């Protein structure tokens, strides 16, 4: 699996490149690093309140069975559109919880055949989307934005498109 392996080297390679270049350009590597890291520490502190806020809201939503209800509600229509039934909970969970979606995705391998249409669609969906609400909380939390304007509808629209498109493109590229 040379391709998977080569991705493991990206992180150290990027770090080595930055530090190597800085030494070549005679930048104060350690001084600049510490200066930036201090800024990172401040960021971490400033996102905590927003994360507390968001994770409590999302946690309550998840525990209340609301996401299951949404899944049950959209499932009939989604299946008619050719959406594999196993993927619908994943698509609903994805924007809300990264670890939840990843857990569901891993469990999925017990019930679907690896390499099947359902498994490929789930993998494409996992690979092509992000944990929307987490990103939102971290980025807006870091700078204390209170009014996010149209961010939530626009981001959820992108997530919805990603779900629909993953079925479409798996059909297009990977069905034979």
């Amino acid at each position, binding site marked *: 699996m040379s391709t998977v392996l080569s991705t493991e080297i990206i992180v150290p390679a990027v770090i080595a490149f930055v530090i190597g270049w800085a030494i070549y350009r005679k930048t104060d590597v350690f001084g*600049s690093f510490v200066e930036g*890291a201090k800024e990172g*520490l401040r960021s971490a502190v400033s996102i905590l309140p927003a994360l507390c806020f968001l994770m409590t809201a999302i946690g309550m939503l998840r525990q209340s069975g609301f996401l299951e209800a949404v899944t049950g509600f959209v499932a009939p229509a989604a299946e008619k559109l050719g959406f594999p039934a196993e993927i619908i909970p994943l698509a609903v969970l994805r924007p809300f919880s990264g670890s939840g979606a990843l857990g569901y*995705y891993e469990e999925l391998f017990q019930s679907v055949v690896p390499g099947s249409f359902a498994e490929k669609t789930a993998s494409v969906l996992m*690979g092509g989307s992000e944990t929307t609400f987490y990103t939102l909380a971290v*980025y807006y939390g870091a*700078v204390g934005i209170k009014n996010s304007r149209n961010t939530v509808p*626009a981001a959820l629209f992108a997530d919805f498109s990603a779900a629909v498109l993953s079925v479409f493109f798996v059909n297009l590229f*990977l069905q034979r």
Partner: protein
Amino acid sequence: MGKFFFFSVIISIISGIINGKTAEVSAAALEESSHAVELSIKLLGSLCFWSGIMETARQSGIIEKLREILKPLLLLVFPRLKNEEKALGAVSMNVAANFLGLGNAATPFGISAMKELHRISGFSSAATAEMVCFVVMNTASLQLLPTTVAAIRLEHGVQNPLDILPAVWAVSLCSLLLGIFAAKIGFPKGERK
């Protein structure tokens, strides 16, 4: 954000009662905030580390080079950042890190981009058009190699775990463009500040 919290709490309570899960909902209300602390402690290391790397990259001129490469593309999405070199630099680093699949690095870079956009806005408490666009870009995320997914597929005996790549690229590129479109179209008119 406040409205979002209010509605999630109301929905959780109603749905908790309907599904008989009120105990779980109260437990979540009490415990989830400590998960937020765990998460930020987990983030703390990578935030410090990658912010440090970013500052080194800035002082040695790497960001400037990267910014010049990505500038034509970024100005299509953020035309008003034309003369905002620092913001464009941070956005470039975030885009590059996302693209390479360096999720840990993309977040600190994204946060410093947000700080720049916030400064440009005059420290407004409402998101600007640029911020909405930038955050939506990060929720849609364009990744070259979805490493986590590939590793899980390999582990479960998929023979060629990267055969999904063309579909992943097509999905993330299209949803990214649609997200940017929605961010621009839906931004409240007359407030393009």
